[in-house]
């Protein structure tokens, strides 16, 4: 392919992904003066952020004046079982309040306190009611606000456009190559800085709350470009996904149900979470139903209900109850708010949950309990970045949001994702803009052979007849990850998963797609599959290596948290031969003044 027939655009910063992190990055980049483009797989405003429900965690102190960034920082680190990058957790806790106020400045309409301030709600692992929210559709409010801001600023958006390859000039980023989904035509972006904001990996699992876009594109693009991934073994299974009917299995049921008073019960009508309070959280968790119920009104003199333990703890407890035969009729557990709060309260606080259960499952949540079970929700691992700037080890390549790693340690607290998108989206966008400016006299050059190779790889699935069906392969991949690399893991199963993934990898080289290049979902899937395989291999490799249980990584053969693993990050890179390679690396050490926050008083 010659350059003359290829659609080409030049920008200072190209942001890949238009969820919360991508939009916030683009706004920051634009405001830094950089010529900025957003490239996204879906229509603008449809990214997965739209599905976030509960809220944005930010220590604004509107409801509990005692709240401040130090408390939020401490909650975040403890929720992540201390494996978070301390600097990311610190910046996140310090800057989240300003990022929320900024959304209001741009038109977001949050729910209010009686004094007219932004209201804040309770969530798992947070000491104080801290989540700025709009009913249970906070993600929609956030993405619409950012989308409207980006449109008002006149930022260029390339919708339904998929990036398949990052281009490099020696060691620096030189741009990105991709295709228009509607026409199938190729497009190239020349840019000295690229921000990855592509979200997560959930589509590698059968039961997931994630949308089709979550195929690990950014993780795979980063590895391919020479960047490193950190702690990919940590995958969050949200405790409460729908389980019935089968077609909605995995769709998220917000943690706000529990934050607003809902409780978990087994088939014996028992509030079983009291049996699963780990030593690590005993001091801050109620040990009787009476104390737990008092906490909603009086947080000073009571401890948090165990239903609001961090998500990893609750998901494992639910898993154990179901395995012990105390599950609900459709293989879940009961989540009950109907008997605890009146119908008007539920409809006001949880309108989309009410709507979702009514429409999809014929269940009236103001009158009966919901059936729920764990669902793959979030990957804590991601591109290893510098906390302050979001830059990866590749000059010019930035990452923010779910695709970046380190911020959440081994487990993310609810509400910390939306704030993460805003805080680090802004930082990555800003610094990508600065980078482009600093290097304005040292432009990068796109190398034609890279472009040709990317174009050839993209059309390869059309070249062969009689090969594998990409949909079949995707389903098999999801089975492997669900069954062998799920909530509870063992050495044998992980070893087997790697063998099966290698076989799937081989078969993925022999895909066939029918039809032509115009809006062809079979072809799109065939190009997403290698990314899904890459992240799956990363997760399985790291999970096999880490011989302990911590946060979103539970080994049945190593059930305890092991101190000696507490200071170790697992780093994945592509070696010279294109094979994944795994190294151990020391966790960055927290300064003493922050360390003091964790000393027992």
């Amino acid at each position, binding site marked *: 392919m010659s350059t003359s027939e290829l659609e080409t655009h030049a920008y200072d910063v190209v942001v890949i992904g238009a969820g919360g992190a991508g939009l916030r990055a683009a706004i920051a980049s634009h405001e830094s003066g950089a010529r900025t483009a957003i490239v996204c797989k*879906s*229509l*603008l*405003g*449809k990214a*997965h952020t*739209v*599905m976030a429900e509960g809220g944005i965690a930010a220590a604004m102190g*509107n409801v509990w004046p005692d709240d401040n960034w130090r408390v939020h920082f401490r909650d975040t680190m403890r929720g992540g079982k201390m494996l978070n990058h301390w600097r990311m957790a610190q910046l996140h806790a310090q800057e989240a309040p300003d990022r929320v*106020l900024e959304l*209001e*400045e*741009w*038109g977001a*309409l949050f*729910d*209010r306190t*009686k*004094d*007219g*301030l932004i*209201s804040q709600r309770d969530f798992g692992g947070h000491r104080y009611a801290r989540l700025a929210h*709009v*009913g249970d*559709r906070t993600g*929609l*409010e956030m993405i*619409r606000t950012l989308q*409207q801001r980006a*449109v008002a600023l006149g930022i260029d958006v390339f*919708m339904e456009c998929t990036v398949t390859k990052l281009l490099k000039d020696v060691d620096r980023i030189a741009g990105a190559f991709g295709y228009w989904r*509607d026409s199938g035509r190729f497009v190239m972006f020349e840019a000295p800085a690229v921000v990855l904001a592509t979200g997560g990996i959930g589509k590698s699992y059968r039961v997931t709350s994630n*949308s*089709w*876009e979550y195929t690990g594109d950014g993780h795979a693009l980063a590895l391919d470009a020479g960047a490193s991934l950190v702690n990919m073994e940590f995958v969050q299974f949200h405790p409460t996904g729908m389980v*019935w*009917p*089968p*077609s*909605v299995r995995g769709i*998220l049921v917000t943690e706000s149900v529990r934050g607003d008073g809902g409780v978990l019960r087994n088939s014996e009508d028992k509030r079983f979470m009291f049996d699963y309070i780990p030593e690590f959280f005993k001091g801050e968790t109620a040990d009787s139903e009476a104390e737990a119920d008092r906490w909603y009104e009086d947080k000073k003199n009571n401890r948090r209900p165990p239903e609001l333990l961090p998500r990893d703890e609750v998901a494992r407890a639910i898993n154990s109850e179901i395995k012990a035969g105390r599950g609900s009729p459709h293989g879940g557990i009961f989540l009950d708010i109907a008997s605890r709060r009146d119908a008007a309260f539920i409809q006001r606080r949880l309108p*989309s949950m009410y*709507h*979702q259960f009514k*429409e*999809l*499952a014929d269940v009236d949540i103001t009158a009966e309990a919901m059936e729920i079970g764990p669902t793959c929700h979030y990957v804590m691992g991601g591109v290893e970045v510098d906390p302050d700037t979001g830059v990866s080890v590749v000059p010019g390549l930035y990452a923010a949001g779910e695709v970046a790693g380190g911020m959440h340690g081994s487990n993310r607290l609810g509400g910390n994702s939306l704030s993460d998108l805003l805080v680090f989206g802004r930082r990555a966008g800003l610094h990508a803009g600065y980078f482009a400016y600093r290097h304005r006299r040292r432009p990068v050059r796109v190398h034609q052979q890279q472009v040709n190779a990317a174009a050839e790889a993209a059309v390869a699935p059309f070249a062969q007849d009689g090969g594998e*069906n*990409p*949909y079949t392969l995707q*389903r098999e991949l999801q089975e492997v990850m669900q069954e062998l690399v799920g909530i509870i893991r063992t050495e044998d199963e992980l070893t087997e998963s790697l063998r099966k993934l290698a076989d799937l990898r081989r078969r993925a080289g022999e895909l066939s*797609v*029918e*039809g032509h290049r*115009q*809006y*062809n*979902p*079979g*072809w799109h899937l065939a190009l997403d599959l290698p990314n899904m395989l890459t992240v799956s291999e990363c997760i399985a490799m790291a999970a096999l290596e880490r011989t302990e249980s911590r946060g979103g990584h539970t080994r049945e053969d190593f059930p305890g948290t092991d101190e000696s693993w507490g200071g170790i990050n697992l780093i994945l890179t592509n070696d010279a031969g294109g094979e994944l390679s795994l190294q151990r690396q020391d966790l960055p050490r927290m300064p003493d003044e922050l360390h003091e926050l964790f000393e027992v008083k």
Partner: protein
Amino acid sequence: MGYPLSMRLWRGDRDGGALQDFTVEVEEGEVVLDAIHRVQATQAGDLAVRWNCKAGKCGSCSAEINGRSRLMCMTRLSDFGHEDVITVTPLRAFPVVRDLVTDVSYNYVKARELPAFAPTPPDADGKRRMMQQDVERGQEFRKCIECFLCQNTCHVIRDHEENKPAFAGPRFFLRYAELDMHPLDTHDRRELAQSAAGIGLCNITKCCTEVCPENIKITDNAIIPMKERVVDRKYDPLVWLGTKIRRRDDRTEL
């Protein structure tokens, strides 16, 4: 439990197309989008369909199901009999890209034409204060998931291609109303709602409200109040005088 479902799916592109028959095995509790995904996975790998969340939250999978504007992910098969044929066609108000996917860029063009929110400065502590009852009206409109079913159904757009340049459609009347009712906005877009967005062309048949998957009362709560506000500004000398003398409205007109 499962049964064979007969479907007729429109397949084609800008140059034309036709309904094609499929029979696909479906299960209890499934929705139209599940059936279409199964056709895609087993019979027509290149069947084009746009979707994202499959939970009624993103508004991507809009189509016409047996002639009605609906989200495929929120249309349950149990609403139909086992013998019924389900026909799915692309949104009619927008140009077809391929199969069930349409070019909805009209809506993104209209979004760009609408001047953004411009708030008053924050209070001394950097925060803004608004009462819950004052934000609730806007919150109803911000439930909009931009599925564009209202746009597709509105006959001003659907039946009159020539109206498109002058008419923004119900989705954007929601937006005008939301901003007009925002307690802290400093801009007055009433003139624009009339001249640029063409709210006067709407003759309140409520078709948009009927198809809204978020049950937003588009006509009653947004369009009619907005029409009244536009008219107040334009024709009522007493209201005009009142706003000037008592300084009830010191917004900047756009």
